């Protein structure tokens, strides 16, 4: 995935390393520095700053809850499903938003030295991941209060879904991070996509209210299967069938592969478009 010396015809040094390539330890150091400084910039270095990241979806949850719990009063576990859907959605929206602008935001580093730029895209999701970890605790508490503590196996499967979800966000981020350098209004387009996507994914409404023949189209939108399957294991305690899991794996692989493909194609010249 990284740019290699061979790409631009740069030879190798005496140690057989390509100039500009980094050892794992250096790459790790760079990744950690990026994560640390991103956190600091975003939350002003304090944990109380972190509070704001949690506040937004929490307030949205309370607002939606107070209206739609009457609309869907007959739907079992509506509030549990709502909180899971909202928090997972927030990760998607935040992760893709920061991922898309990650190269742009770190442009001042890209023009300074040659280093594997995918590390910038990868670490851009870290803030959203930290928030997700906090969401996880909130969800678990909420489930416990509702008397539905999920089994260890269910939590484990949920984590597998989250891992796939992360890869989907990473794939979208990789692809869009290089495209936005050429198409400066891509973020506006993506704003519209996520706004519509919020309603394509069955977050505020139960999917069952829509006719069966439409479900297929909803599931094409990657957050839908992740949200639905997560609800199934956490709330109902049942595991989606093999076919469903296979489908999600394929979606993940396709989105990631597309992202990597676009990134590899355009990242070489990224510095020229900054």
């Amino acid at each position, binding site marked *: 995935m990284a*740019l290699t*010396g061979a*790409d*631009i*015809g*740069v*030879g*190798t*040094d*005496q140690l057989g*390393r390509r*100039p*500009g390539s*980094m050892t794992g*330890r*250096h790459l790790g*150091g*760079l990744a*950690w*520095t*990026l994560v*640390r*400084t991103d956190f*600091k*910039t975003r939350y002003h270095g304090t944990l109380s700053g972190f509070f704001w990241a949690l506040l937004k979806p929490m307030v949205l949850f309370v607002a939606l809850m107070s209206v739609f719990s009457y609309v869907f009063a007959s739907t079992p576990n509506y509030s549990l499903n709502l909180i899971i859907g909202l928090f997972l959605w927030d990760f998607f929206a935040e992760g893709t938003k920061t991922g898309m602008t990650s190269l742009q935001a770190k*442009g*001042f*580093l*890209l*023009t*300074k*030295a*040659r*280093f594997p730029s995918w590390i910038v895209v990868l670490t851009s999701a870290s803030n959203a991941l930290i928030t997700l970890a906090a969401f996880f605790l909130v969800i678990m508490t909420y489930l416990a209060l509702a008397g539905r503590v999920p089994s260890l196996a269910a939590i484990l499967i949920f984590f597998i879904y989250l891992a796939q979800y992360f890869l989907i966000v990473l794939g979208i981020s990789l692809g869009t991070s290089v495209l936005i350098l*050429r*198409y*400066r*209004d*891509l973020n506006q*387009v993506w704003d519209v996509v996520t706004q519509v996507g919020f309603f394509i994914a069955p977050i505020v409404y139960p999917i069952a209210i829509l006719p069966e023949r439409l479900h297929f189209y909803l599931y094409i939108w990657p957050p839908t299967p992740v949200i639905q399957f997560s609800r199934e294991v956490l709330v109902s305690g049942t595991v989606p069938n093999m076919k469903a899991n296979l489908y999600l794996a394929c979606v993940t692989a396709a989105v990631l592969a597309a992202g990597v493909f676009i990134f590899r194609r355009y990242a*070489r*010249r990224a*510095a*020229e478009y900054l």
Partner: protein
Amino acid sequence: MIQVDGVSKTFSFPDVRRETLREHVFGLFQPRHFRVLTVLDAVSFEVKAGETVGIMGRNGSGKSTLLKIIAGIYPPDQGVVRVRGPITPILELGVGWNPELDAIDNIYLLGSVMGLSLGEIRSGIDDILAFAELASFANLKLKHYSSGMAARLAYAVAFKAVREVLILDEIFAVGDAGFKLRCEERYRELSAGGHTILLVSHSPKDVATFCDRALLLEGGRILMEGPGKTVADRYLNLLTAHGDTSPEADS
């Protein structure tokens, strides 16, 4: 050590620049005209290990693009660059920080991009701040720095990160006389220590003093190659011929 073989680079600028999807969609049926600017045209040269080579040329002659290609930041359109050693580029260092972070965090960012490990940065941070004379501003956010302070900090980090091959763009153009002197001193150490150095400068004096050899770029081609002093003189002639008499003016 550095082998540049037939490197060409063109940038094409459309007459009407389309930077957004909206413009692309609405402009689908309008013909597009591009102006192709050849920045580098089949440039070839070689730098031997331990040598210091200067590059001179007027604004827009392709110097900075050439350095960026050698550093691997831009890919060449044609030709090959071979560098047999780890490179430390010192380019455009005056600009580009995270303004919301303090000096220490910015040092960590720039240092790790330049290939320093966290341990090396941690143990070198006092040196870096001392070299830049910014120890008392270590916890000040970069947005409150003056441009001179920011540039000094960048050079201090880069000098700490120096590996085998050093690529310098306008190195002596920053800071006050004292800082310049320290840079020159550090630079002499590096040169004496066997580093291979490629140096862009507008100062005929610097090229004449520091470089074993120099190249003169004009319009993306190498106009001449020779001893630093000779190239510096030719460069001055070139400037006077074009009515531009301020060799130091460049950004």
